[in-house]
């Protein structure tokens, strides 16, 4: 069960004026108690999000969290080598991904399982990478999204170059780069901001500031806000409550509209929190307090939408059980898919190193094939 199932697509409409909206501080549209925030210039950008769309966003949030929980369980059971949990970042990922059009292109980091889900990637295929069965679980062109990028910061330059290509093609789509707060220290992120500004590339820099880079707090990376960093490169930058799916959707739509309109790059700092470990190999208790985690738990992105649905009377039992069922089904399919993974053939080691024939690869493949054949005959 993937996100491609019939559900309202939240295609951005062009705003009358796509010039960068400027607001002080955090953009927020849903308060913790579920009431809407009044008078934000961004509210208009999600005016079309009615009951059905709200429910569908909530469904995605629940399903994405369930995918994450199931994958974490599979890792504990030894089915995956590693997993990078997104717990706590569901709204930042679903809100931004649901703002994208099919012809936009996502350059992700390694934690964007929620984005991948919204792009229509089969969750079981997401896991094949973490299981060690493949270096990338899907075709980037099929979903308009790259597979996990491990080298921190590198993908922002790829997104910028892709966006330069969009501009050369005179197309009206956009590229979006996902990266974290720690990544902002990498030279590649700065160079990407600089190139994007110089070439006015239609790219959105989506930074999930989840407060931590493994054991390092964001203040070690920067003494200023990440938005100020973006502005320093001439990239209009917005800070959004990353645990508010509507606010993230609105801000991302705004950034995309600027890109579509040829107004260049935008940086979005989604302020959120990594509720779980950096990866399943990490032990956060070594470097952060239970209090800090507790403070963020009350800002939970799912509880937020749930509260909104309650306040607005959209949360009936039927819908709840439907969502639970969908989540169960996804988890079940995910698990089956993972356990059914067909592992790669030894000789596939030599596949696709190059697009064209290569003498060295050819001879190594042949020698290795002989070598293995030798075993079948008379094992050493």
């Amino acid at each position, binding site marked *: 069960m993937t996100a491609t199932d019939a559900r309202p697509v939240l295609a951005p409409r062009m705003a009358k004026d796509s010039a960068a909206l400027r607001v002080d501080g955090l953009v927020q549209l849903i308060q913790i108690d579920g009431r809407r925030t009044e008078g934000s210039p961004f509210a208009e950008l999600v005016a079309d999000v009615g009951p059905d769309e709200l429910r569908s966003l909530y469904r995605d949030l629940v399903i994405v969290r369930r995918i994450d929980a199931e994958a974490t369980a599979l890792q504990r059971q030894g089915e995956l080598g590693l997993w990078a949990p997104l717990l706590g970042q569901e709204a930042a990922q679903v809100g931004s991904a649901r703002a994208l059009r099919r012809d936009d292109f996502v350059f992700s980091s390694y934690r964007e399982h929620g984005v991948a889900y919204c792009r229509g990637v089969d969750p079981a295929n997401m896991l094949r990478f973490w299981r060690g069965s493949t270096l990338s679980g899907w075709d*980037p062109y099929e979903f308009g999204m790259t597979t996990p990028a491990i080298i921190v910061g590198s993908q922002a*330059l790829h997104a910028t*170059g892709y966006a330069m*290509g969009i501009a050369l093609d005179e197309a009206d789509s956009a590229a979006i780069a996902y990266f974290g707060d720690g990544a902002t220290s990498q*030279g590649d992120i700065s160079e*990407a901001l600089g190139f994007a500004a110089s070439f006015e590339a239609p790219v959105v820099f989506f930074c999930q500031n989840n407060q931590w880079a493994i054991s390092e707090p964001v203040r070690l990376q920067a003494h200023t806000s990440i938005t100020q960093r973006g502005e320093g490169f001439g990239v209009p930058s917005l800070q959004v409550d990353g645990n508010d799916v509507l606010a993230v959707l609105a801000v991302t739509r705004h950034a995309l509209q600027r890109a579509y309109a040829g107004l260049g790059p935008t940086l979005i700092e989604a302020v959120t929190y990594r509720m779980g470990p950096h990866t399943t190999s990490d032990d956060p208790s070594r470097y952060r307090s239970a209090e800090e985690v507790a403070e963020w738990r009350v800002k939970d992105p799912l509880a937020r939408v749930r509260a909104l649905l309650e306040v607005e009377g959209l949360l009936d039992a039927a819908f709840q059980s439907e969502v639970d069922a969908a989540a169960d089904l996804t988890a079940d399919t995910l698990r089956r898919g993972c356990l059914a993974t067909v592992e790669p053939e030894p000789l596939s080691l030599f596949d696709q190193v190059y697009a064209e024939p290569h003498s060295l690869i050819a001879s190594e493949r042949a020698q290795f094939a002989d070598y293995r054949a030798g075993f079948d005959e008379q094992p050493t």
Partner: protein
Amino acid sequence: MTTMALGKAINAGLRRTLERDPKVVLMGEDIGKLGGVFRVTEGLQRDFGPKRVIDTPLAESGIIGTAIGLAVRGYRPVCEIQFDGFIYPAFDQIVSQVAKLHYRTQGKVKMPLTIRVPFGGGIGAVEHHSESPEAYFAHTPGLRVVSCSNAADGFAMIQQAVASDDPVLFFEPKRRYWEKGDVDDSAETASDPGTLHQARVLVAGTDATVATYGPLVATALAAARTAAEEGTSLEVIDLRSLSPIDFETIATSVKKTGRLVVAHEAPVFLGLGAEIAARITERCFFHLESPVLRVGGFDVPYPASKLEQYFLPDVDRILHAVDQTLAPVP
């Protein structure tokens, strides 16, 4: 047939690729109005416009990183690194991304990048302007590495490199940019990558084989002439491709001569000569009359230019090695 200098031949080859394929874009520092510090891109921005020939900000990682994105979008970027010593800031993007993306995505994403690098010494330059970093890239699976030594190859090989669906590091011997040669630019030169990775025997000989590439090919040819006067017949091979290497051609020659000297400007320790010596010895163990010898830069950082004449292999050092292979000391 037109006689032109190597630099002009590469320029003409680049022009062909720009004419042939609208997806080809040139990127680099000062390649536009200035035409590059060596003028290899001269006139191309004027004729193809700033969208095909792009002056980039001063950041090599940025150049290669954005070229990768352009390639993902379906473009065929040709990046110029101004001097060999300035490629290192882009090393991560080249080694971790350009080299791996095709393999990572099981061939879904192609990386038809060409990275042009004027390389090598001998021009009396300041630090970081005379390096020979080719071995770093030849040791990196996923990349192809070639080097041209003359105008005809410069014209043809750059077109083949750009036409290749794989990433190609294209090393240009900067001190030979001004050396003229005949170039067949009449017919639409085949840009089929087929022959890009074939070595070429430039001089047939019987006593010993000298294999080299790029800037030292001319030096090896001069050595062969001198040796001939002294009655020694050298076979000279221009490797042309450094990854993969055309071992077939070298082995055939060595089985005939029984002796091999490999020369390059890069430091000898883990330079291309190491791989060639190791593999040819394995393939021709019972044909070799004496061990494969290597003549290269010394294992010191590239020195001040007043010392480069001693650092760089020259005719004398190549012939000295040839003498040693002809009379091995047990």
